[in-house]
């Protein structure tokens, strides 16, 4: 079975191999349920703390009363999308780190699973995990605010999340490379990548408030379009037709980021194999 043959594995076989990772992560997640509770509480508190800024703006009169509802939703969407995005990136950054913690890295990486299948399996779990956590945060946070979703076009918002998530997989795989290259500091470096995405993507403000050079960086972040698209559909009710441009841009990001990140991961793995970094202690 050559490498090329392996990529030509029958689809059911590829799905079964990818499922191994989804099932394993689900089993791990069940065993670490207390961590999940901690992250859920943190997510809810973070969402509330940021969205209450809109109420403060109403109290001090810095925002016209007609705009308070919009500001509340703007911040709520920002925190929820960030909770989703950071959960996906966190899970993918742990692709290697978690294996090192547990000491299983050598056994997992010597299994006959094409790396693309391994990473897609991990990504599928990451997306489902992030989606579930974000929905729980939404359910726990909404009762604190009087928000009106009457204008929302949920179908278009769901389409933006679905297409945008593909590019998040690519971004996640790229951040997963860092702990492989830098066993001791890689995870912290992936937090730095997240921080940059947070700064430039307009999570809590429109990107138009950024200095010019940061606005250019914002254009290179898929999260910018993801946030813009969701806000547009939830706040203004933009339909699928109105989201065509955003969906195309996100699809282009996905088309380049996923294969590009797989190629980069494979190259990084080869380098790690050459320098002896694929082991428990870097």
């Amino acid at each position: 079975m050559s490498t090329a043959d392996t990529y030509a594995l029958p689809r059911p076989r590829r799905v079964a191999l990818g499922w191994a990772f989804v099932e394993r992560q689900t089993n791990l997640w069940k065993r670490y349920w207390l961590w999940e509770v901690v992250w859920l509480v943190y997510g809810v508190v973070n969402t509330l703390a940021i969205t209450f800024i809109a109420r403060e703006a109403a109290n001090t009169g810095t925002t016209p009363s007609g705009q308070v509802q919009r500001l509340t939703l703007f911040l709520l969407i920002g925190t929820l999308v960030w909770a989703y995005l950071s959960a996906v990136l966190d899970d993918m950054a742990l692709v290697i780190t978690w294996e090192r913690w547990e000491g299983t890295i050598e056994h997992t990486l010597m299994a006959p699973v094409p790396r693309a299948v391994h990473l897609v399996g991990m990504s599928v779990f990451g997306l489902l995990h992030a989606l579930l956590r974000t929905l729980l945060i939404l359910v726990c946070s909404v009762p604190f605010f009087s928000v009106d979703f009457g204008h929302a076009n949920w179908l278009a918002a769901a389409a933006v999340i679905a297409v945008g998530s593909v590019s998040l997989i690519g971004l996640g795989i790229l951040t997963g490379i860092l702990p492989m290259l830098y066993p001791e500091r890689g995870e912290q470096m992936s937090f730095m990548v997240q921080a940059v995405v947070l700064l430039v993507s307009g999570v809590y403000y429109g990107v138009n408030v950024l200095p010019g050079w940061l606005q250019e960086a914002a254009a290179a972040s898929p999260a910018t379009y993801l946030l813009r698209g969701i806000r547009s559909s939830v706040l203004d009710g933009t339909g699928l037709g109105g989201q065509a441009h955003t969906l195309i841009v996100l699809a282009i990001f996905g088309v380049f980021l996923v294969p590009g990140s797989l190629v980069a991961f494979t190259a990084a793995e080869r380098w790690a194999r050459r320098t002896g970094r694929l082991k428990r202690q870097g």
Partner: protein
Amino acid sequence: MSTSMTVRQPAGLNNDPYDASAALVVDHVVKEFGATGLDRWLRRGRRTPYRAVDDVSFVVAPGEIYGVIGANGSGKSTLIRIISTLLLPDSGSVRVFGRDPVADPLSVRPLINRVSADPSFFRPMSPMENLLFFGRAYGLTGDETRRRSLELLLELGMDERRANEPMLRLSRGQQQKVAVARAFLTRPRLMLLDEPTTGLDPRSKRDVQRFVADVRAQGVTILLTTHDMEEAELLCERIAFLAGGRLVAEGTPLHLRETVAGERAVDDVDMEAVFMHFTGRSLEDDEEEERTEAQQRKDAQ
């Protein structure tokens, strides 16, 4: 005193490194750490490169148990990691049943599996959950994995009820038995046993050794690294001594003892004496030297 000796090939094998009839061919493999490309330039003068595996060659026949004896740091685990497709050699080549782990690791991985001194599991998960993952990763179905896992765990003397408890509640010996079950679950043709009984209590050690002898009867080829001379002599058909990354001697236990015995009776020569003869030191000396070198490397960094 270091003495080299002729490498004796098992019957039916020749010196062709690409001979597909051999289970494993290691041909002039060299692996050095701490001196690659940009790293070499950035760290020049601050980090001493060292050669973990130095021009090692040997051939293992299908169905053979081949032992590699050496102290900690002698290059055993580096060699195992190269064969496992986890590490690329700087030069030389390896073939596993004629396939190249460097050029095409995915073609080699279904044929091999490994047990190391550290059981290495997802510790919060149960043995069955761990085995389910590794079984699926090697293409087994869930039902097949569960059935075979239970068979193997029972064969290794483990209580069935422990199969669903978190790994972290199991003793070291029980964890190592799960590691052995994981390795044999996938029916590998070449098994890499990297000090599988290190740190085990005598009973667990006996259970694992008995199991290894049993599976060998099924035609599995085994590469066993150890620093336990008794274990090597008990299980292996041929033994190689590794010291400082170099293969210094190779042969059947009897042949090695005969070589060293000279005027003495062969029974008066144990493998420790054979090791000292070929390496010029005891395993304890080697381990002490390795500790010193490791400290020096750490200081240099």
